[in-house]
């Protein structure tokens, strides 16, 4: 694949899927009206069209598509980063417990305040806390070896899952429990401009950091000893990678709930397109993840009369696709 054309091509794909999402939805807005709204918005003219149409396009569909793109890109980027860090292609962004922690945080805020007002903050904070716990557990030895880090992640995830179950158990079954369950299945339905901002900032910082580090991530994937001999301050770069990947994932999870598979599969599609060098893999994964997520969200809100949770679609699409990939790449030295 020619790398020169791939990047602009993928960027077009993302732009195209965002554009498409403006035209698809249950609330009918005439095609030419959508174009008109966009035209007026871009040229800065005076809006004379009905307010409802405007807000559907500009306040609901556009922020939602942008948020979807950010979430997909952030999850794919941190997936690619963690896969390299743990030298394991089967790692997903939740490996250090960020999703389990965020799930607990969201449920805690729903149960405590009986509303979804503080879900973002709680999910974000507990997601980050979980990773800090995993990191502390992983530092049993002087250095953070991959195996102790993963163990830390497994332990912390298990504990937060148990705490989440406890909350589900005590939650009001008519109101709070369904809210928790739907949150856990993932959705972009809450996307508004303010959400786009609060989730977007950590995602952008995380992705920017991973982009800056992307070549060094290759070296980290050689293992601690060799990376150190190649002149890398392994402890520093490992912490930076975990920090940026966690910011990106926590930012994504706190606005969209738990959307699985994207962070696991998209980097593999990227590997098939551009190989394993994170210099190319990282941006390509981000673009692929963005386009994938926007398309999945279009399906989620238009495939049936009520909105489907994102997690269902990513897994139903992602599962078979992953099997296909495993079959196809079994000749590689995984």
């Amino acid at each position: 694949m020619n790398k020169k054309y791939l990047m602009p091509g993928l960027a077009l794909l993302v732009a195209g899927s965002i554009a498409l999402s403006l035209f698809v939805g249950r609330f009918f807005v005439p095609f030419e009206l959508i174009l008109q709204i966009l035209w007026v918005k871009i040229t800065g003219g005076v809006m004379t069209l009905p307010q409802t149409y405007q807000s559907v396009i500009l306040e609901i569909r556009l922020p939602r598509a942008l948020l979807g793109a950010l979430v997909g890109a952030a999850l794919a980027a941190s997936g690619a980063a963690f896969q390299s860090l743990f030298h394991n292609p089967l790692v997903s962004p939740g490996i250090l417990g960020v999703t389990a922690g965020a799930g607990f945080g969201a449920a805690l805020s729903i149960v405590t305040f009986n509303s979804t007002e503080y879900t973002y903050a709680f999910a974000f904070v507990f997601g980050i806390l979980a990773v800090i716990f995993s990191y502390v557990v992983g530092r049993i030895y002087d250095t953070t070896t991959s195996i102790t880090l993963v163990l830390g992640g497994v332990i912390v995830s298990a504990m937060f899952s148990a705490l989440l179950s406890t909350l589900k158990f005590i939650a009001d079954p008519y109101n709070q429990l369904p809210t928790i369950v739907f949150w856990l299945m993932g959705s972009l339905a809450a996307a508004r401009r303010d959400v786009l901002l609060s989730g977007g900032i950590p995602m952008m910082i995380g992705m920017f950091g991973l982009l800056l580090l992307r070549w060094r991530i290759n070296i980290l994937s050689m293992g601690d000893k060799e990376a150190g001999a190649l002149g890398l301050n392994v402890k520093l770069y490992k912490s930076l990678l975990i920090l940026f990947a966690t910011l990106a994932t926590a930012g994504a999870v706190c606005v969209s709930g738990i959307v699985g598979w994207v962070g696991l599969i998209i980097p593999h599609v990227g590997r098939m397109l551009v190989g394993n060098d994170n210099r190319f893999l990282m941006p390509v994964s981000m673009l692929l993840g963005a386009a994938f997520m926007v398309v999945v969200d279009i399906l989620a809100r238009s495939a049936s009369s009520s909105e489907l949770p994102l997690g269902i679609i990513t897994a139903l699409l992602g599962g078979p696709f992953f099997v296909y990939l495993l079959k196809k790449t079994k000749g590689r030295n995984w």
Partner: protein
Amino acid sequence: MALIEACRAGFKYADNTIFEDVSFTVQPGEIFCLLGPNGCGKTTLLDCLISSKKLHTGMIFLKGEELRTLTSVAIAKRLAYVPQDHHKSFPYTVEEVVMMGRAPFIGMFSQPGEADYAVVHDILADLGLSWLRERPYTQISGGQLQLVMIARALAQQAPLLIMDEPTSHLDFKHEILLLEMIARIVRETGIAVVMASHFPNQVFYLKNQGVPVRAALMNAKTLCYCGEPSEVITADTLREVYGVVTRIVNYPGINGQVYKYIVPLGMSQEGGEAI
């Protein structure tokens, strides 16, 4: 100035002393061969040299500066490491792997530039690996992989290579090929090599290639002999360290030189220490 100067170096895990009181120096342009039985601490000593493990006692100086005071980048510019067992993770191309050797010269958030590509291409060409450039390094032979690891180390442009049993996975042909490659690198570039080896004959082989070679025998948790190969590797020392009875034979080599070769005769009966 000595590239490495180890002074009474010692390392232990909890109460288990791996080695102690190890002192030696490595000068530019020489091959320093570290010999000794399995488990004598060769690999641990090399790990201490590359700062992957920290000495418990004593000090190591790299070009006169104490190892502990140097940053990872400063160490990587003074020595480069060729691992014994490389754990392959992702199928990077050969070029991408060798490029990783440029890390000490590339800024924290930067990417390799044209100058780095030029260095990598020169090294690949020099080692005869150019044709493998785009190949996934997971799909090349063990001998080629070892050369790729050496290429990556050379890309660090350090004056010293640390090699941990570089021939351990290689067949007869590739063993000789690799030893000649090491001798050529030392001869042509003046780089020094510290290599751990299981085969005392390799020391003589390298010596026969006409490069300065010194040998060190490690046993009983320390360096017990160190110096000229013909003085360090004798029937007596081999019997003492390995418990193997040998005869060292001289045979005429090319252009009138006398080559040495170790012929093992069997395990020593005295001492009684089996395996």
